[in-house]
């Protein structure tokens, strides 16, 4: 039985978890750095414990301080959220060592999936498709050529010891193979003193399609369908949706089964995500295991919308030792959901992250729109943490209706005081490629700069900017100090 949860995170995800706790009658404990002393997640919690200075290493990554805070405050569980310590196996086992329930998977599952090599071996044994490739035991030219033909073209020949592109060769067919092997071996030996080579198929123009899985301690494991996260910039997801425009029912069933097999193979419990690369389209498309995220994802609201479930409730119940609240037969995909991430950044200036105070903040409110945010009006977006301000999730009957709903919500989202990526998000949603459902993981890296260009404001905006100087009430409001707790300024009301 969990009575007190310490939420070892900040921002929107800390608030999300605390709301779930409130609904279940569980008390919450926030932790905070000096940059977050009056942040919304601190005000939302029943109690709050200071961790230290703003840098994550001295606050949200300081596992020993967090466990100490949990003990002092009488917590019986720790929810790590995402990022920070969420996928740190040592932290998860330290929690258990301190007699605290870690709301997440067993430390051994985090560790096994945290290593690319061990995860790949585990998946191969479980029959989950991985990108074809191998490090041949026999490193002769003939043996490596044979391995390359087994993997298929195009492929990469890589230094087994290496990184940073040294000793790496892309080969498109038989013709360049022999020269690439000798070149890569030469470079690998020079750079790493080890000429061992590894061959791997290159998945061309993949989509990123991930499957939400959930397992309990009673042997039950289910999947909650896919999220298509192909709209990404340099591996940073920007828009996520479900259903994926690329999956057929047959492929969805195959990928769901593979994801459940993957979770079972690693002895998984609680919520997790199996990420796949998807190549091609239709029933002939092939999918390959990429990695497992052993935590709640940023984009979990997409799944909550289409499956009609509360993943954080289920996380807490499963962590307590209860059975999963659903069987596979209970779960259905209903309608279409799309999430986009609103960042404090300037896409027209190389996506430079922006810090500063939010002068005005008004969330969109309309049917089918959910906003998960970690800020309020007057909040300071600091340089120390991820610049995500909010997530906006639209749910509607069809994909087109969900896009229209998300567009309208973004257009009315008021965030004044620092640049955001909202114009860029709108340009992506309006692009023909996105509307047609044809975005792959290379799309934004190839076409993003055209979508990110800033456009001059309409003359109407200049009219309001000048008129605002004539509106005395508005100007005096702008010049006042950030809003504080009104009780703090009333004499006789000091706590």
């Amino acid at each position, binding site marked *: 039985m969990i009575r007190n949860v310490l939420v070892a995170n900040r921002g929107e995800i800390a608030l999300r978890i605390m709301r779930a706790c409130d609904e279940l009658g569980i008390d919450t404990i926030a932790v905070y750095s000096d940059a977050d002393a009056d942040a919304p997640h601190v005000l939302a919690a029943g109690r709050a414990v200071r961790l230290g200075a703003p840098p994550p290493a001295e606050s949200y990554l300081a596992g020993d301080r967090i466990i100490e805070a949990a003990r002092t405050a009488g917590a019986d569980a720790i929810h790590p959220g995402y990022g920070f310590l969420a996928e740190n196996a040592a932290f998860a086992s330290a929690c258990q060592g301190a007699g605290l329930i870690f709301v997440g998977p067993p430390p051994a599952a985090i560790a096994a999936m945290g290593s690319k090599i061990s995860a790949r071996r585990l998946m191969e044994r479980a029959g989950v498709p991985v990108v074809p490739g191998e490090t041949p035991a026999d490193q002769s030219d003939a043996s490596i050529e044979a391995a390359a033909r087994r993997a298929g073209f195009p492929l990469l020949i890589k230094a087994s010891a290496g990184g940073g592109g040294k000793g790496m060769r892309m080969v498109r067919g038989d013709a360049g193979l022999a020269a690439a092997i000798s070149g890569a071996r030469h470079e690998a030996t020079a750079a790493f003193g080890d000429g061992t080579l590894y061959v791997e198929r290159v998945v061309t123009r993949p989509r990123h399609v991930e499957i939400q899985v959930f397992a309990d301690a009673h042997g039950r494991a289910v999947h909650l369908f896919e999220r298509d996260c192909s709209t990404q910039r340099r591996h940073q997801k920007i828009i996520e949706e479900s259903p994926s425009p690329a999956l057929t029912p047959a492929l969805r069933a195959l990928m769901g089964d593979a994801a459940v097999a993957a979770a079972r193979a690693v002895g998984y419990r609680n919520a997790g995500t199996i990420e796949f690369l998807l190549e091609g389209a239709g029933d002939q498309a092939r999918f390959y295991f990429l990695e497992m995220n052993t935590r709640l994802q940023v984009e979990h609201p997409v799944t909550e919308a289409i499956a009609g479930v509360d993943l954080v409730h289920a996380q807490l119940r499963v962590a307590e030792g209860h059975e999963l609240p659903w069987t596979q037969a209970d779960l259905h995909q209903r309608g279409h959901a799309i999430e986009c991430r609103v960042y404090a950044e300037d896409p027209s200036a190389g996506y430079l*992250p922006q810090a500063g105070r939010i002068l005005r903040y008004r969330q969109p409110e309309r049917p089918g729109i959910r906003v998960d945010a970690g800020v309020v009006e007057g909040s300071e977006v600091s340089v120390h943490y991820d610049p995500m301000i909010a997530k906006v999730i639209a749910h509607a009957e069809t994909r087109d209706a969900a896009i229209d709903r998300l567009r309208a919500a973004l257009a009315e989202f008021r965030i004044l005081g620092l640049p*955001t990526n909202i114009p860029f998000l709108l340009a992506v949603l309006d692009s023909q490629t996105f509307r047609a459902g044809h975005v792959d993981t290379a799309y934004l890296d190839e076409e993003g700069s055209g979508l990110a260009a800033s456009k*001059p404001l309409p003359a109407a905006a200049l009219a*309001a*900017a000048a008129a605002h100087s004539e509106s005395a009430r508005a100007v005096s409001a702008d010049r006042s100090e950030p809003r504080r707790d009104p009780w703090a300024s009333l004499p006789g009301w000091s706590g």
Partner: protein
Amino acid sequence: MPGTRRFIVRQGLAATPVEVRSDGRVRVGDPGDVFLVTAVSPGEYLVSSGAHTWRVAAAGPPEARWVAVEGAGACLEVQPEGQTRAPRQRAAHGALAAPMPGTVIDVSVAVGQQVRAGDLLLTLEAMKMELPIRSPRDGLVSAIRCAPGELVQPGPPLVEIT
């Protein structure tokens, strides 16, 4: 016309004359277009011209006035006519210092190299984002004061261009 105030509104390098009349009509440009501006709540305006109406939000002091309309937003400078004002210090875009604490992930130039304004000098990573640092002017790279992997702070120049 009595009760009329004139402003210069700057967006980046563009400067536009704007005339605000006491009857709520606002002329943007010269001769420009006339809009009817109505405040619906503090800092929220309905701006109409002919059949089209925009809902515009405005906040912040004149030298850094934020406006948002239909999902687009920008920081403008609103200068009353006849009043001179030092141009607002813009954020360190394109300067030679780190705009925020970050890790150097790549140095794209070498000492002695000629660069042009806008050339990529180095790339930082901060807040999980890549930040390109570009040359603000043409010149010669005379010193590089950081290396890949190094954690740098805002302030001192990371590259010197002479």
